[in-house]
């Protein structure tokens, strides 16, 4: 990795060897194990997985916002080359909402219901910029305008419940971008919205991120969102990254059966419901992981070796995919229609 590289050349955001565990009655349960992820300046990377795969925990760990009872057990988080995981609360606070910002899944509950939109935007600005109330308010109106809220200045005095879900998520986007962060983590930003609103919010996110040149880590379970929005994709399963590749390569030629399964279960654009194949079975209980490949119990390609020996993430460049890595003993046999036959 680039730990030794000069700070100036470092990627905007890096996660290296991140592990996260939950404290339980009988010791700790690992939820995230050795995750590596890099996002270059201006780049957009998707972290894809089913719910419970550990993708949201990865994001929260990166922000230092893990809930009670869950802690980072190892690894580094680097912002522009600077390791931030061991900073004290005060120093970390200075980065949150400034150098690195985050938007959350549910816009209905992510805004404070008893404060006006304006007040919450002004707070985001004034926590990091020494500007007066009026200047911050002007900036807040400008931010709302950027996410295409009509009559932005007039709506500053409205409360969250007076906005629709899609508009609330746009407010969240505006708030996250208030201080021109270098990195934006978007955790399932459209999952709680209906389909038409989803497209609108993603378009606005796309537009403002391009304008701001911000590096984006998009957390999602929906590969459909990924294709249009992201440069690269990392696929997470049961707390581990199982495949990482440029978006186009991944869609064209997945090198992990789980990725292939996700692609097969994606609703196609031209309606062909018979082609929809859900992945059989359920993800493993993190307290009782299989000894070999974590995906083996659900995999059509699994053999004795898969059940005994955990595969490492291996570079698939030699097989023709540039920048593609996957953790599978049978990567060469991964082919979409056959995996779950």
């Amino acid at each position: 990795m680039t730990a030794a590289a000069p700070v100036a050349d470092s990627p905007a955001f890096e996660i290296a060897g991140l592990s996260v565990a939950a404290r339980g009655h009988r010791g700790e349960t690992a939820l995230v194990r050795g995750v590596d992820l890099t996002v270059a300046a201006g780049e957009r990377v998707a972290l894809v997985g089913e719910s419970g795969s550990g993708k949201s925990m990865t994001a929260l760990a990166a922000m230092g916002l893990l809930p009670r009872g869950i802690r980072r057990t190892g690894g580094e988080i680097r912002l522009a080359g600077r390791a931030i995981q061991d900073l004290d609360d005060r120093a970390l606070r200075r980065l949150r909402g400034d150098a690195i910002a985050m938007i959350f899944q549910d816009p209905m509950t992510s805004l404070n219901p008893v404060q006006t939109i304006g007040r919450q935007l002004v707070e985001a600005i004034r926590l990091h910029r020494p500007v007066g109330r009026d200047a911050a308010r002007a900036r807040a109106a400008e931010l709302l305008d950027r996410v295409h809220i009509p009559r932005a200045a007039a709506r500053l005095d409205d409360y969250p419940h007076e906005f629709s879900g899609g508009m609330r998520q746009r407010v969240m986007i505006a708030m996250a971008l208030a201080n021109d962060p270098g990195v934006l983590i978007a955790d399932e930003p459209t999952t709680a919205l209906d389909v038409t609103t989803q497209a609108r919010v993603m378009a606005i996110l796309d537009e403002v991120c391009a304008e701001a040149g911000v590096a984006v880590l998009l957390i999602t379970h929906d590969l459909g969102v990924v294709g249009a929005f992201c440069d690269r994709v990392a696929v997470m399963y049961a707390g581990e990254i199982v495949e990482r590749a440029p978006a186009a390569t991944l869609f064209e030629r997945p090198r992990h059966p789980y990725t292939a399964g996700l692609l097969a279960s994606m609703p196609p654009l031209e309606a062909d419901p018979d082609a929809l194949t859900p992945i059989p079975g359920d993800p493993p209980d993190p307290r009782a992981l299989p000894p070999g490949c974590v995906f083996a119990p659900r995999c059509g390609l699994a053999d004795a070796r898969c059940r005994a020996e955990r595969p490492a993430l291996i570079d698939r460049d030699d097989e023709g995919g540039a920048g593609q890595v996957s953790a599978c003993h049978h990567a060469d046999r991964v082919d979409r229609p056959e995996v779950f036959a």
Partner: protein
Amino acid sequence: MTDATSQGTAAPAPPRPPGLFARVARSWTGGIGLVLIGLVAASALAAPLLSPADPLAQQLSAGTIFQGPSAAHPFGTDNLGRDVLSRVLHGMRFSLGVALASVGIAVAIGLVAGTLAGTLGGWWDRALMRLVDSFLAFPVLILAIAISVALGRGAGGVILAIAFVNIPVFTRLARAQTLKIEQAQYMTAAVLMGSSLPMRILRHTLPNMLNPVLVQASVALSFAVLIESGLSFLGLGIPAPAPSLGLMIAEAKAYIALAPHMVAFPSLAIVVTVLGFNLLGDAAGDATDPRRRG
């Protein structure tokens, strides 16, 4: 790691959730609550056996009144030379009896009224809930006082007064639960299978509201003991010389400087009983509501 790891790839079956009682007993608040209530209930039941003396027997002489705790009188004696321990035990018996009877009546009436309001809906529902709300507009003790005065003194009046102030809570609870259960999938299934309304109420609605009713009943019991002691303290409970904890404390008030044990022991009995029901109620509430932890 847990021992489940060694079981390999087999997905462990989720353990069957234990019953309400087991979950309550397992939490330490519930455990203490159960122990306290167990002690109180045992003392109340066995009061005639445990009492060293007749709670009403007076021994009027300079040496026998206002005695502090001793081997013969572990809780001392009162202004009339009566054994305080015996009076406290019988007082607890009375308190607990009144609390159980009144909450039992409140649960029975509240469940019927609430379930009917929830199932029938419409005009019935609105009228009944309006009535219930208007009774909630009274300060509880004052309502209990007014009712017990109207019904006359004695155990019956006290029981009915306390039952009455508890009815609104159970009516609202039963109504809310009925509406919730009516929405459930299995109810739709039961309707499709041609199950009659009374049958559905008996087979599904009532059993399914058991847990929330038990939680509320525990809180109501603590409340009932408090109100009973308050009414007795004000002289509106059962008439003297019957041993009731509130009345004992009211009588002892005049001698608090001389014989504080006359106040202390009945007070302790009330606090232990109420505390026990509150702990049980808390633990049961935590056990039934996943949002309430810690």
